[in-house]
Structures are given as C-alpha cells and as structure tokens.
C-alpha cells in the first residue's frame, strides 16, 4: 500500500471507523484517539497490509483499542452517545436503542456494531475480533436477545 492508497482509505473509512469507535467507547474524544491511532498503525504497516484488506485491518485495530480503552477505565457509563454522532431519524426508537446498547457489554456491543453498521458476516467479524465463528454467533444472539427484551418491556413498548 502506498501513500495514495492510504489516503484513499482515510477518505473512505474514517467516518465509519469514527462511528464505530464512538459506539464502542461512548466518548467522542476517545473515538478520535482510536481513529487516529488506527490510521497511524495502518501507515506504519502499509508495506504489509493490502489495500483491499485495509478496512478490516482498521476495524481490527479500532476494536482492540476500544476494548483496551474500556478496560483502562474503572467504569464506563454508556449514558449518551456523542453529540456529533447523534442524529436520530426516529427519536423514540433511536433513544430506546441507545439505552438498550448500554445494557450489553463492550464486546457484544462491538459485535453488534460490526454486524449492523458495517454488514460483516460472522466469519469476518471473527477475523476482526479474534473470536471463533461460534463465539461470534453466540455473543451476537445473546446481545440480540437483550436488546429485544429491552424493547418489548412494558415501559419500552413501541
């Protein structure tokens, strides 16, 4: 990968990576750091990373950095999304889903985001996160069930 291809990756994937990092970390400033660090690693390893696999590499680095960032904090209260990433089309459903995301752990949240935001398949998520396909499927289903149960609660019925 040369500088031209690297810059193309920046223009194409920086926004998606930032959205993913925002949901994972819950803080816009942390998300900025994750994105910056991820691209820094990509630049350092540009000779080893193929341009076609740059996106997966970026999300892999961002996932690990987000997890590390989460573990460094004693506790993260996923109370509200970053303001710049919050643009609800359906305010009620969006708010309920944001609260529902706060109910699941950071790893399950990252899996849901990789699945729903980026559309990765189970095996691709497994490659990014370092989990097995079965683990990805189990964790995802567990997260889906938590989200569903949150939505169908009496006070959250839509």
């Amino acid at each position, binding site marked *: 990968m040369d500088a031209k291809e690297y810059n193309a990756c920046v223009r194409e994937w920086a926004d998606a990576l930032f959205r993913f990092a925002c949901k994972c970390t819950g803080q816009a400033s942390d998300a900025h750091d994750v994105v910056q660090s991820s691209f820094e690693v990509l630049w350092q390893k540009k000779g080893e990373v193929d341009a076609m696999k740059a996106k997966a590499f970026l999300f892999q680095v961002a996932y690990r950095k987000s997890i590390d960032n989460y573990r460094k904090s004693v506790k993260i209260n996923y109370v509200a999304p970053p303001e710049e990433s919050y643009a609800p089309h359906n305010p009620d459903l969006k708010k309920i889903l944001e609260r529902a995301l706060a109910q699941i752990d950071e790893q399950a949240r990252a899996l849901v985001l990789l699945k*729903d935001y980026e559309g990765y398949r189970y095996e691709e998520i497994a490659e990014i996160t370092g989990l097995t396909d079965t683990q990805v499927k189990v964790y995802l289903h567990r997260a889906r069930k938590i989200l569903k149960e949150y939505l169908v609660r009496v006070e959250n019925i839509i």
Partner: protein
Amino acid sequence: MIGWDNYEEYMMMHADGELEPAEERELMEFVSAHPELKAELKAYSLTRLSPDETVVYTGKDSLLRTEPAKRVIAFPQWWRYAIAAGVALLLSLSFYKYREVNKIVDSIAVTNIPATITPKTVQPIMDTNTAVVPKEIQAPKSGVAIVTPQRKIAPVTDCKQHKVAPIAREEKQEHRVAAVKDTTTRAVQPIAPVEQPQVAVEKEQPIIRVDTTAAVAALPVPEAQDDGMPKKRSLIDRLPIDESNKNQLRKLFRVVKGTYNGVSKVKQELDTGEITVSVEDNKLRVSF
C-alpha cells in the same frame, strides 16, 4: 427444520441477515402458521441498528499523508538533447552497418572459391574436394599458414611423388585450390622461401597456425636448366641447409676430391710400373 425449539435462533439470524433465501422462506411460513410470533419477529428486527451517516470524522486532513509528487523533467533547450540523440543514433547506425559489412565480407571470403587460377603458377595441390581457402587465411611468406583447427587440413598430395602438380589438373574442380608457383618460363624456383601451400579449411572455425616450412623445404625441387628441362641436382643442393653451409660443404668436397685424385694418380702409376715400391729388410724402396 424450524420448530418451537429453534425458531428464536432463526429470528436472530434473520435480524443478522445470515439466513439463506430458503431458510428465510421457511421462517416466514412458520411465523405465518403461528401468528403469535409476529410481534417477536418484529422486535428482533428492530434490534438491528443503522449507522448515522451524519456523524463524520472531522480530522481527516490530519490523517492524510503527502503523496510523492510526479517527477517532471524540463527540457528548456531541447535542441541540444535532440542533437545529442541524433549523433548517438548516427554512431549506432554506423557501427551497426560496419558490423554488417564485415559479416558480408567474411561470408564472401569464406564461401567464395578463387575465381581463377593463374595458369602460369604452380602450387602444391591440396587434397580436398570441399575445402575452401579464404584469402585472409592464406599462408604468409614466412611459411606459416593460417588454418582452422578440427578441420580437414588437406595434405600436400604431391609431396611423396616429388612432383609438381600439373596446372590443368585441378582447374575444373570447383572446391579444390591449387597453389601455383609463378613460373612463366616453367622454371621452377625453390619453394620454401616464397611458396606457401594453401591449406584447405572449412568455414567458421577458430584460426590456428601450422608451420609448413619444414614440409615445403623437404620438397625436392628440380633445378632450372637452360633448355627448360629439369636436370638432376647434386646431393648438396638437395640438402635442406642454408646456402652458406652448402658452400662450405662444397669446399670440403673439393678438397676431398683433389686428395682423392692425387691418390688415384699415384695408384695408377704404380699399376703401370713406372714406380716400384718394395719393402726389403725393413726398408722402403721406391724405384723410378
């Protein structure tokens, strides 16, 4: 097969978008058969998040790297380069043409047979039907012939017979070369210093040198005679030694011959009785 024990997993996979079309149809049929599951299926579908495209990363410029600029070579005085290129091209063509001409000359020198053989010359004949002698490799006057190795080097066929090859004998044979000596009056001169046999070779072989002086010097050459007919040479003349040595040898021969004649005369007088020699009482008596 969807049942009550696994329908929920199918619904979650439906939310994940991982179901195959056939599985998707099967799930819809199962839900249609059990309408009480429609709300649950809708709830799972709502858990699917959609990215907010309005959220963007504002620090892209800080992430961009400088791309290497394209190299531009300016030619402010292009005519200088044009002249240089032209000269280089001319030299290249000249060298190429020079090599081509040399190749042609070489091929002609190797393949062409001498067109004419001077009838006034007599040369030792090379014994080969296919051999060709290029002009470049003809023997120099020093008696060294340039030939190619691993070739059929034609022997001097007339050496054993001590004859001079007839001129007309080989003229009609295309691939035979007759080394001929210049003798307009048919007077044959000694070969060694001037005559060099042409050695037949095949084409395109590396050149080596073969000393033919000894072989040529060993050739018996008849001496010239006033009437044009060869006469028998003396033994000294036939010896393969320098002329000075021959002269010394002749002087010695004359001394020996004179002594021999004196002794023969004394012997003849003794035989005629004019001189009587006897030994008596241990004394030699000579009577005249």
